[in-house]
């Protein structure tokens, strides 16, 4: 255990105490107590910047299940530190914001903060764990706490729908990831990510490489809302806005990004990795930005924009993996993609967090987030408007904000891919910059919608529930801080480059560095007249024109039929699964005993018959058999006749008597086969049984209309099968005896050891007396059961 372990555990410990704070300090908003924790954590993680950026990574191990190789190993390197800072820093800001956003009187705050702290701890666990099983545990915990937070207003139908959807999709991905973890463990025999990275060449060669990679990517893509799994994210917007800002823009959705970045050294050399990560990322970027424009809810626009920006980061990570094909970082033009991914990750957290908070403020102050009802808030809410401008312009990639820089680097990364001459990138690679450019144009348009639709234009107070005014200062603090960071990183980007980006890039691309070498990232505003600059200019000009003509081409969205949307496909497949399983179940669970018996018999016949013939166990030998005497033959004929009579009897009396005759026949067989005790018992018991049958049937109805048993072909086939299989098994068992009988012992020792001459009785009460004891118990239970069935009568609905 170390302080690093404690840092992960603290949120969980704090979550235990939140309900007490809520109960004991009713007058103080619970959030103030919670706020202390992320601030402390942020300061604590901040101290790691210096050692980590100078190249010394820390790790510490504690035992959890050492026998299975599962250790609580906390590993602090550039990537982990970057995420830990994001989680604790934005966590603190979000909690501060939520203190003003959620009313202490109306909301069940203890639940909110417990879930939020659970999430924070789980997320820290994901990014700082070195052991993959521990990582997976925390990963599922983020899914669970996200589920709880989305369904926070659980009385609303839509919240529950969104929570369920996100749960199903992310847990599906999580389970796939577990599969990948197990496969990787089989290859490398370790759960540690660091050791796995050193074994990357072995993994590359292994047959499990591809399945493990695909399963990992499924986990990363579902969590990070990549195409086609992004559909849960827009529905997750039913969560309270602080949750959307924290989980669904800055942290949880980046867990998939984290995983992709973390496993780039393991999988990155494979062409499949490059194509899937880059391809799906860039497609998600274009798709998400295109669909963001038709949304009318501010948070829905932001959700689609998150999807698209995550696609951007993902595609950059894929493009960055191309650099692994070169020996070093000298003249390696592809490393810029990785750097851009990390830089944009930070930028996205700043501007998207602030935009969500802006959306929350607008909602809070006007009562709606629908851009069709909002307008002209600029003069009423000047500070919010300023923050929105900074956030949205940064997202659109307009100088001098930080989004501009990362977008330039993104274009550079995509254009550089054209120089990559592996995996046929030279033929299809041209698609990457084109899709990137188109996606950026749409990004520009929706960013303008976010700023200008609510804040400019005509004010329509009659459509609003409340009279809008500027938000309280406390609510503005967090977005102001985030927006200032967006400006700060925009003007002085290099404060990030040495402290965070270089060590993070070193963790993503570890083998490119020689001993003691580090990345040299210098982010400059001006690269000269290169193609990226013209792309950005094109984005701004085309974006502006399209934004102005938005009303004219907006109809294009109606062309896409509602039936074919992914949401509809998800809903229909869910309903189809339910209906399908109900139909299957109804088809075989008929409620008739007969049908179930039929299944059981059929299964037994088929399995036994299959085993008998497929293993060629059937054999037929008659040597050593006793000869058939006349008596036995006649008796067998009588028994068969009795059996047939039972089958064809029209009245119950005939069948009982025929059954009795079969029973007496059995006891005669016992006589022939020299079993006097059996014959006696059988005789007595058959008599009593027949008497009982007669007694009971006196009260039972006549066989239906004195009809004989109707003939049913399926039943006949099943019973014929049972009879045949029993005969065949008996014949082959008789033909191949494996060992001698143990009865010699009984014959020799009955008198010597037990002092009895009747061997059967000696076996029953001496050698194997336990059988008899419990057979007596069976009889006793039957007697008591019969007694209570007859005596104890409770009519329906009566209680004892």
């Amino acid at each position, binding site marked *: 255990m170390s302080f690093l372990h404690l840092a992960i555990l603290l949120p969980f410990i704090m979550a235990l105490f939140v309900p007490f704070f809520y109960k004991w300090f009713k007058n103080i908003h619970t959030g103030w107590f919670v706020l202390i924790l992320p601030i402390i954590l942020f300061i604590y993680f901040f101290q790691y910047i210096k050692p980590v950026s100078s190249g010394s990574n820390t790790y510490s191990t504690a035992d959890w299940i050492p026998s299975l190789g599962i250790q609580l190993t906390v590993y602090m390197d550039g990537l982990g530190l970057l995420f830990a800072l994001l989680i604790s820093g934005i966590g603190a800001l979000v909690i501060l914001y939520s203190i003003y956003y959620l009313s202490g009187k109306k909301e069940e705050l203890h639940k909110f903060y417990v879930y939020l702290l659970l999430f924070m701890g789980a997320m820290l666990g994901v990014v700082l764990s070195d052991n993959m099983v521990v990582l997976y545990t925390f990963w599922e915990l983020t899914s669970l706490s996200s589920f709880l937070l989305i369904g926070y207003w659980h009385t609303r139908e839509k919240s529950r729908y969104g929570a369920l959807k996100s749960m199903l999709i992310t847990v599906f991905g999580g389970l796939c990831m577990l599969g990948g973890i197990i496969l990787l463990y089989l290859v490398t025999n370790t759960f540690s990510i660091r050791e796995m990275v050193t074994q990357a060449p072995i993994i590359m060669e292994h047959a499990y490489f591809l399945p493990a990679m695909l399963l990992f990517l499924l986990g990363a893509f579902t969590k990070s809302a990549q195409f086609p799994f992004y559909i849960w994210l827009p529905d997750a917007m039913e969560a309270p806005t602080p949750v959307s800002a924290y989980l669904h823009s800055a942290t949880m959705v980046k867990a998939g990004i984290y995983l992709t970045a973390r496993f780039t050294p393991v999988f990155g050399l494979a062409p499949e990795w490059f194509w899937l990560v880059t391809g799906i990322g860039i497609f998600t970027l274009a798709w998400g930005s295109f669909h963001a424009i038709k949304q009318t809810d501010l948070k829905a626009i932001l959700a689609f924009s998150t999807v698209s920006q995550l696609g951007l980061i993902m595609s950059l990570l894929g493009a960055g993996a191309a650099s692994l094909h070169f020996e070093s970082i000298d003249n390696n033009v592809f490393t810029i993609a990785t750097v851009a991914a990390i830089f944009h990750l930070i930028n996205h957290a700043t501007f998207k967090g602030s935009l969500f908070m802006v959306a929350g403020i607008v909602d809070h102050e006007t009562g709606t987030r629908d851009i069709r009802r909002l307008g002209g808030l600029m003069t009423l809410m000047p500070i919010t408007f300023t923050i929105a401008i900074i956030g949205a312009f940064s997202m659109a990639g307009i100088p001098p904000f930080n989004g501009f820089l990362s977008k330039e680097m993104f274009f550079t990364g995509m254009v550089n891919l054209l120089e990559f001459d592996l995996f046929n990138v030279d033929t299809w690679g041209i698609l990457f910059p084109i899709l990137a450019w188109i996606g950026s144009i749409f990004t520009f348009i929706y960013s303008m919608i976010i700023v200008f639709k609510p804040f400019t234009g005509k004010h329509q107070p009659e459509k609003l529930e409340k009279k809008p005014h500027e938000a309280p200062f406390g609510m503005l603090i967090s977005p102001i801080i985030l927006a200032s960071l967006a400006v700060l990183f925009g003007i002085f980007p290099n404060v990030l480059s040495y402290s965070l980006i270089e060590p993070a890039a070193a963790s993503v691309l570890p083998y490119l560095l020689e001993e003691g070498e580090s990345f040299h990232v210098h982010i400059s505003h001006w690269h000269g007249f290169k193609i990226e600059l013209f792309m950005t200019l094109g984005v701004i000009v085309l974006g502006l024109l399209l934004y102005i003509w938005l009303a004219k081409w907006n109809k294009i969205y109606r062309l896409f039929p509602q039936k074919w949307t992914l949401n509809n496909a998800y809903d229909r497949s869910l309903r189809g699964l339910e209906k399908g399983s109900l139909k299957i179940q109804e088809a075989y669970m008929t409620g008739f005993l007969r049908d179930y018996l039929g299944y059981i018999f059929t299964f037994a016949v088929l399995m036994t018959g299959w085993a008998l013939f497929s293993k060629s166990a059937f054999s037929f030998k008659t040597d050593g058999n006793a000869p058939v005497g006349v008596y036995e033959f006649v008796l067998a004929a009588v028994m068969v006749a009795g059996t047939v009579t039972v089958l064809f009897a029209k009245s119950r009396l005939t069948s009982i008597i025929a059954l009795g005759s079969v029973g007496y026949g059995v006891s005669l067989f016992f006589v022939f086969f020299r079993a006097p005790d059996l014959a006696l018992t059988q005789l007595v018991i058959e008599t009593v049984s027949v008497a009982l049958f007669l007694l009971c049937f006196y009260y039972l109805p006549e066989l239906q209309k004195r009809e004989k048993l109707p003939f049913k072909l399926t039943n006949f086939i099943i019973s014929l099968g049972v009879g045949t299989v029993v005969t065949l098994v008996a014949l082959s068992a*008789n033909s191949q005896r494996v060992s001698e009988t143990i009865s010699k012992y009984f014959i020799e020792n009955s008198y010597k050891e037990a002092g009895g001459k009747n061997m059967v009785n000696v076996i029953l009460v001496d050698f194997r007396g336990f059988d008899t004891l419990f057979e007596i118990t069976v009889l006793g239970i039957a007697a008591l059961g019969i007694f209570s069935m007859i005596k104890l009568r409770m009519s329906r609905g009566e209680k004892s």
Partner: protein
Amino acid sequence: MEVMMSIVCGILFMAATYLMLSKSLLRIIIGTGLLSHGAHLLILTMGGLKGGAAPLLGEKAKTYVDPLPQALILTAIVISFGVTAFMLVLAYRSYQELGTDDMDQMRGTDSHE
């Protein structure tokens, strides 16, 4: 002899199965009766039907028949008798309460109604 007995047992099993698949409760119980007869005979047959004296040491014979299957069958007979008796009373009681012995009318009420 074993071959003949195996076939007789097969016929008993077949008839028992056919009866158990029928609608009337009565026939199902008769079916179980036939099934236990078949099983008992099968145990005896599988123990071997070679000649020998009854398993009584007083016979002073050279060979005896195998006593173990006989002990097993004895136990089985008693148990199947207990179960049959219980089932008969159960059938009687359910006819009294439900007014039918038709298995098609005795269906679970949990999910369908």
